[in-house]
């Protein structure tokens, strides 16, 4: 019997499990199957491919759009991984993005954030987004420790509530809907003031990547360090593996559950804040557009690794952008991109299963 060494260091090998080669081949296999499907529905494969490449890497703007999507996926995914250390499954990213977006809009438009001194006009709405997401995430935690509600159910149901809350906010003039000047006024909020928009990294609108990118990189590093180097990381792990033994050892189960889900929620809220303040600039129905669920999948596929989350988030971000362009230019339905994304999940999960069986 060989001894298993518990790996505690920030070990690069742990960060890129399951083996990179197998992950890449799984993605390649899924991509090939996608091409077969495109061929089968009668679209010229070269046209579709060139549209895909144009939509992802074809222009600085396309790259920036892909990165902005990836940021949201990554934040939700990192939150998922943190909660998962405590053996919790947060499927509420979608709702956390929505409440984050609502809070950021409200503070940016009506909270007086625009007139604050330099930096604060966008930092305060971001903070509001995080707090809103944190509360939305912590509620299932409280429900779990008080009455034992399974967090998978409660985070999911709270997502639906948040999505409809957002609908209500943009439909009701008493809430965030812009003033009704005519019957044709769209159900959306006013555009946020310029000072509350996130600064662009290059200052150039043809490459609209904002400060969300460096912020997300920093958050990823902090999350990696938190999980591997701090007492909190060990305590989350302890609760995740054996909550009874952890609690006997004085690690509060209640505190860990609320904290882990709260952090995951805060990151989801922040993702919503970045999307609103850095990309969309106004709130409308369907704002969260399924990003919460894509982020969840990124977190799931990463199997506990923060670097894995980043990789999966980038993959999905570029895939989404390319897919949209394929639809517009080559007439490939977006649904097909969803199918390919699903295929990637299945092949990666299958590959992971085989890796697990082999070792």
């Amino acid at each position: 019997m060989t001894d298993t060494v518990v790996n505690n260091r920030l070990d690069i090998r742990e960060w890129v499990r399951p083996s990179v080669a197998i992950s890449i081949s799984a993605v390649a296999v899924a991509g090939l199957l996608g091409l077969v499907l495109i061929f089968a529905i009668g679209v010229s494969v070269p046209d579709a491919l060139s549209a895909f490449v144009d939509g992802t890497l074809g222009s600085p703007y396309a790259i920036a759009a892909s990165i902005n999507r990836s940021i949201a996926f990554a934040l939700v995914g990192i939150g998922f991984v943190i909660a998962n250390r405590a053996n919790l499954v947060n499927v509420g990213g979608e709702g956390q993005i929505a409440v984050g977006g609502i809070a950021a809009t409200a503070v940016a438009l009506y909270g007086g954030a625009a007139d604050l001194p330099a930096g604060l006009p966008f930092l305060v709405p971001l903070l509001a987004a995080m707090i809103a997401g944190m509360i939305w995430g912590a509620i299932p935690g409280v429900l779990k420790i008080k009455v034992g509600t399974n967090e998978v159910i409660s985070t999911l149901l709270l997502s639906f509530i948040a999505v409809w809350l957002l609908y209500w906010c943009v439909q009701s003039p008493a809430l965030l809907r812009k003033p009704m000047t005519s019957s044709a006024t769209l159900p959306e909020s006013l555009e946020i003031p310029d000072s509350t928009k996130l600064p662009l990294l290059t200052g150039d609108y043809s490459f609209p990547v904002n400060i969300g990118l460096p912020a997300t990189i920093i958050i990823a590093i902090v999350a990696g360090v938190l999980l591997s180097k701090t007492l909190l990381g060990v305590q989350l792990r302890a609760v995740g593996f054996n909550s009874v033994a952890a609690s006997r050892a004085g690690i509060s189960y209640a505190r860990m559950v609320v904290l882990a889900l709260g952090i995951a929620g805060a990151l989801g809220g922040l993702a919503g804040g970045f999307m609103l303040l850095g990309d969309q600039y106004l709130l409308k129905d369907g704002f969260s557009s399924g990003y919460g669920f894509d982020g969840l999948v990124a977190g799931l596929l990463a199997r506990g690794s923060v670097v894995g989350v980043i990789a999966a988030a980038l993959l999905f971000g570029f895939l989404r952008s390319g897919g949209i362009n394929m639809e517009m230019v080559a007439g490939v339905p977006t649904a097909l991109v969803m199918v390919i994304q699903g295929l990637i999940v299945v092949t990666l999960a299958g590959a992971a299963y085989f890796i697990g069986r082999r070792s």
Partner: protein
Amino acid sequence: MRDPAQTLTEPLLALQGVTKRFGSLVALSKASLDILPGEVHCILGENGAGKSTLCNLIFGVHVPDKGEMRLRGEIYRPTGPSDALASGIAMVHQHFSLVHDMTVVDNVILGQQRGLVNTRAWAQRLERLANDYGFALDPYAKIDDLSVGERQRVEIVKCLIREPRLFVLDEPTAVLLPDEIASLLAICGRVAAGGAAVVLVTHKLAEIKKAANRVTVLRGGRVVARSSDPAGEIDALVRAMIQGDVKALDRSAASTLGVGEPGRVRIGDPPGETPTPEAVQIDGLTVIDSQGVTRLDHFTLAIGPGEIVGVAGVEGNGQSELAAVLSGMLEPSRGRVFLGDLETTHLGPKEITAAGIGVVPEDRHAVGCIVEMSVAENIFLNRLDGFTSFGFLRRKELVHAARDLMARFDVRAAGPDIAFSALSGGNQQKAVLAREITLPNLTFLLAAQPTRGLDVGAVAAVYGHIRAACQRDAAVLLISSELDELMAVADRIVVLYRGRIMGNCAADPRERERIGAMMAGQAQ
């Protein structure tokens, strides 16, 4: 130790050079063994010696990798328990397989008959059988209402009704009261007298003295000794089993095996010379569970500093609830607990630890440790915050301190970074003890079933550490279902029955019968 009887009688079952591997582990290596009709043949060995593997090979649960088995001279190669049963081999497993909502007779009929069932005829057969073997059994009693000993009799009857030629019992006495053990051994004797062979697996020598005709000793999967005069050669058998001298063995550990006189080895001053304030005061502790059943009923006890009080009783009589309340895992329905002047009744585990209460939980894997985490993390699990600065874990320091404790408590592992699951049960328990006993302000040590599943060497080490804690003036509460263990380690014993204290007596071997009676619920 060649057995002359072997030449006279043809063996019922003969194993020749049987080897069984599980992965890289050799569970049984070239074991040869003859079982004669009409004998009680004991298989003796420590945990992990290969006893259960041997039983499972005979019963067809596993197939041997090498070697052969012969039943009455013919090759015997069972591929499952049904083959074994068809060949006249029956087995009582360590864990019972009874349907709790059903009656005794229904459980016996299960798997024996198809189609229409004449329950009354079966019940009559059962009663006759029980009568023949000298015990009583109500065929229409529900399993739920039976004691553990009675449930085991149901298992035995399930086997005997098949009139087996070979009857295998795997560690049958672990869960029984003293008089139930005597009755079980008597049944084994009767079965053998009827011409069948009985294979009795055990690690208790007292049973061998009483019941065995012949003994085979296993160690590390090999047959290391045989004897056809077990009562006369007991010392040699123990030496073979543990590969050491009985004399060198810790006296208390030896007595739990049934070797030597049970008797406490007292270190330090005898208690009670100057009246000392009680270290622990438990007042009328009562636990009523969610179903309204009273699990612990007005438990009252005072423990002085440096005193070891044993709690005896068959498992499931309130011991778990008592331990859970004292360790801060369960809120009692009534009653109070004081540690010196500090009331700890409503404190959580963290505060309990901070107050200086060390806890060795009965269920090591569920409560005592986190097997997926490292040895170092486990050994300091309740005070990891002592190794942090600004929230960061000072891992080097943690590993270093863990290495020290591992050396002091003889925790054998490849290193502090090894996963806890890679340790043997004994080493895991030593690590848990190390964590709980080295609490800087230890005033009360609660140890529940601390030696369960450990081999003799580890048992001796655990006793040594418990005594060391008591020498440092900690009060110790030792909960154990092994009466010998309590006799060997405790100063005095209280007996729990259905959540109540049935009585209080000295840890004196002469009290054994009285304690046995109280464990069975008879007030003394």
